[in-house]
Structure formats: C-alpha cells, structure tokens
C-alpha cells in the first residue's frame, strides 16, 4: 500500500459487490431516478420524527445493498457510515437495529467516500471480508439543523442548494469477478477558501475538490483525459463552473461533472442543484455504479466534497473549511 501525499493504492482487488440506494419522494423526478432501488412515498411517516425516518431510510439502504449482494446484513463484518445530523444520531440508531460492528464517520457531504476508503483499508489489511460503507442525508432533518425551520419564509438565493433525502450504501468484498474495482483513493486535505456564506457552498468546496483531484492526478501520474468521468459530490452548478474555470488548461468539458448540479436537472426551484451526504452517495452508488457494471465507464474518479461548518462556527464569524475525499474505480474488460 503505497502512500504518496494521501493517495492510497490498493494492491489486493477490492470490489464493490453491489449497492443499495433509497431516496425520498422529492427525488422521484431526478435525472438519476431510474438508478435508485427504492423511492419512499413520504419523507417522514405520520407520527415519526425526522431522525427516526432518517434512520429507517439508512436501514433499508443497507438491507438493499446486502440483498443485491446475495448476503444478509448480519453476515457483514463492519458497517461504516455517516450523515449530517448532530453526533450522527440517525446512523447510530440504524446501526443499533442492524446490530453489526459499526464505525461512524463524519466529513459532512464527503462521508460517503470516507467510509468507502476506510472499508477498503479494512479489506486490504485482511481484517474484514465484507464491509457495508455509505452515507445518507434527510432534507427535513438537515434543513432544520443547518438553515431555517422548514416553513420559515426566506427568499432562497440562486446559489442555495436543496439537501437530497437519500441513503446510499455499498457492499465491499475482495476478489470478485466482473464487478467494479476500487484501485486508488485520495484522502482529502481541509482547505479553507475564505468563504463565509453558508448559502453558497459551491464556492467554499471548489478549492478542496481541486486540491484532491490535482493530488490524485499527480500521485497516480495520470491525466484528466484518461478518465471517462470525474464526478464531484455536491458543488452545484455554480461550484462546478468555478472548478472548471480553475482547470481551464486541460480539456475538462465532458469529463468534469457534478452530481448535485445534475441531480434535479434544470428545475429552477432547486437553484444551484442538490447537496448533502446523500446526494453523492445515491448518485455514485446508483447511476455511476450501474454505468461501471454495464461497462460504459472504464475508469472513473468519484470526489465527494464536504463543507465542515457548523451553525455555531458560522455564527461566530468563522470561514468555511472544506474537504474532498476521492476514490478511483475501474471496470476491467470482461473475461
């Protein structure tokens, strides 16, 4: 396992056996709608709190991943997951009912890739045979904690993003045939681009994404053109345009894409697009995973971007530090 400036190379063949993605009702008409396993009819049932609904969603995503990976959840060695709520309480409650060894991780909206990286390290060191790794977010629970109460009437600026209600979990195993393989990973650095506006996450996270992508490319001495797609988590359409501007020398036209920007198509209501830990999770483990398995993508770089602010630090006038974790997946030729 060669570690050059945060980039890990996995010598053993770590495969994503299968994935499970569950989304809320609002995400029914997203551009990636057909790749989701389950669409909930209601975000929160009648007498359920947001956190209980959030935990229920995580559980069903894990069950989907295990079922599609031809195993049961209680046979999985470790569950690694995270979300955006205080002290990861929804994931903790889901892990309580899943009753398997559990590692909670937090790096805001980059938690999905962080949990996959940790899962790969566990598998690489031989200390686990199967790992469930993923992340999730829930609009009603997150909106209340980070921004305003749901019914509060404010005029959302064009730079604001809509937190996706979604849970995406992947089942990681070793040495499987014709499944996508995680070959490299880059651990993000906390980068602060002196942004203070919590309603303009794209600008805050863009430089963190750029730093991780650049380090990944130099450490694996490859170029952007070698990849079918480099997809960031939730920069939103303004964030991704900033990122493209920063890479303007290389031809980033088609390759550099953003899950959040494309998530709701160009529906003006969602302003700059989707965001949240669930956004990168359900798109990477849904749409991108299906494309890899079908073989239409050979080599992809998935960069989940997270803003490490809290309502407290924002009110104390701090700027917004951000982080971006990345994994590189390949699909070798069939047979």
């Amino acid at each position, binding site marked *: 396992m060669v570690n050059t400036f945060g980039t890990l190379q996995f010598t053993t063949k770590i495969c994503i056996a299968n994935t499970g993605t569950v989304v809320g009702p609002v995400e029914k008409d997203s551009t990636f709608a057909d790749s989701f396993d389950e669409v909930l009819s209601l975000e929160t049932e009648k007498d359920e709190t947001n956190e209980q609904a959030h935990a229920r969603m995580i559980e069903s995503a894990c069950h989907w991943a295990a079922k599609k990976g031809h195993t049961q959840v209680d046979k999985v060695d470790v569950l690694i997951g995270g979300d955006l709520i205080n002290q990861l309480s929804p994931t903790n409650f889901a892990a309580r009912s899943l009753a398997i060894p559990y590692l909670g991780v937090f790096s805001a909206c980059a938690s999905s890739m962080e949990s996959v990286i940790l899962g790969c390290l566990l598998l690489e060191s031989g200390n686990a045979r199967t790992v469930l790794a993923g992340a999730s977010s829930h609009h009603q629970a997150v909106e209340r904690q980070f921004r*305003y*109460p749901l*019914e509060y009437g*404010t005029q959302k600026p064009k*730079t604001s993003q809509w937190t996706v209600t979604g849970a995406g979990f992947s089942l990681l195993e070793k040495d499987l045939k014709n499944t996508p393989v995680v070959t490299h990973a880059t651990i993000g650095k906390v980068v602060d681009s*002196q942004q203070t506006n919590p309603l303009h996450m794209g600008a805050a996270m863009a430089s963190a994404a750029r730093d991780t992508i650049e380090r990944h490319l130099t450490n694996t001495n490859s170029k952007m053109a070698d990849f079918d797609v480099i997809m960031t988590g939730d920069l939103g359409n*303004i964030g991704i345009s900033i990122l493209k*501007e920063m890479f303007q020398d290389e031809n980033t036209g088609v390759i550099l894409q953003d899950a959040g920007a494309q998530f709701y198509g160009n529906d003006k209501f969602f302003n700059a697009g989707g965001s949240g830990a669930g956004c990168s999770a359900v798109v990477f483990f849904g749409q991108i995973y299906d494309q890899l398995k079908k073989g239409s993508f050979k080599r992809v770089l998935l960069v989940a971007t997270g803003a490490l602010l809290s309502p407290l630090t924002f009110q104390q006038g701090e700027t917004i530090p951000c982080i971006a974790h990345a994994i590189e997946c390949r699909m070798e030729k069939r047979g």
Partner: protein
Amino acid sequence: MDQQQFQKIVDEKNPKVPFFMNILKAFIVGGIICTIGQLITFFYMRFFPFTEGTAGNPTVATLVFIAMILTGTGLYKKIAQIGGAGSAVPVTGFGNAVISAAIEHKSEGYVLGVGGNMFKLAGSVILFGVLSAFVVALIKTILVNIGVVSW
C-alpha cells in the same frame, strides 16, 4: 492559484442578484399585505368600538392569525420566495418566524422544543425593539428635562 485569483473566479461566476425585480416584487407583495391590513382595520372600525389609533392592535393579531394558517399549510414559504422582504417585513413575517419555529420543534415536546426554540428567529426583533425603545425614550426624557426639546 492564490486567494485573489480564486476570489476573482468566484465573483465572476456568482449569479447577479436581480435587484429591480426583487424590489418590485417586494413592493407589490408588501403593498398587498398592508392593503389587506387596512381592510381589516376598516372592518374593526366599522363593527367594533375601535378608533383609527386603537384599531392597529386587533389588525396585527388578525394578520398573525392569517400568518399561522398560511405557515401551517406551507403557503407562506411560497409567498416569501416571491415576495422576499415584502413578506418578511410586515408583521405576518414576524408571525411566520415564530410559528414556523414552533411547528418545527414540536417533536422535542412543548416545553423544551416549542418553548425553548420558539423565539429562535424572532427573539432578536423583540430584544432590539425594547432596547432601542429604552434608549430613545431615555434620551428624549433627559433632553426634555434639560429643556432642549419639548414633548
């Protein structure tokens, strides 16, 4: 890629805020809410013993009631998306801030949830209202006692 360069790119990519349209919409929505307020005032003056001066109080209470209905049914945030300050500045905006926080934190119970979080958004309005009223009244009273100003 130093900070200035990055900031230049960010400012360049920032979508321009539609000033004129926002101001126009705020004017229209604010005006409509105040006109409704005026109609309510006339209603109270016509059927109840309220004069022009005293009809303000029941009007405000009725508008907050309307804000409760609109907030509960989820319409207020749609109006606010169009109106912006036009729906936040009138007293219905104050009502919406209190009521949306109350509805939101019901899951934590009435004492800690609703009680503790109700004035999360609107509390500052009361604080600064009382503070500024105190300071202004103090200054004016002192000036009057010195004789510089009359009541």
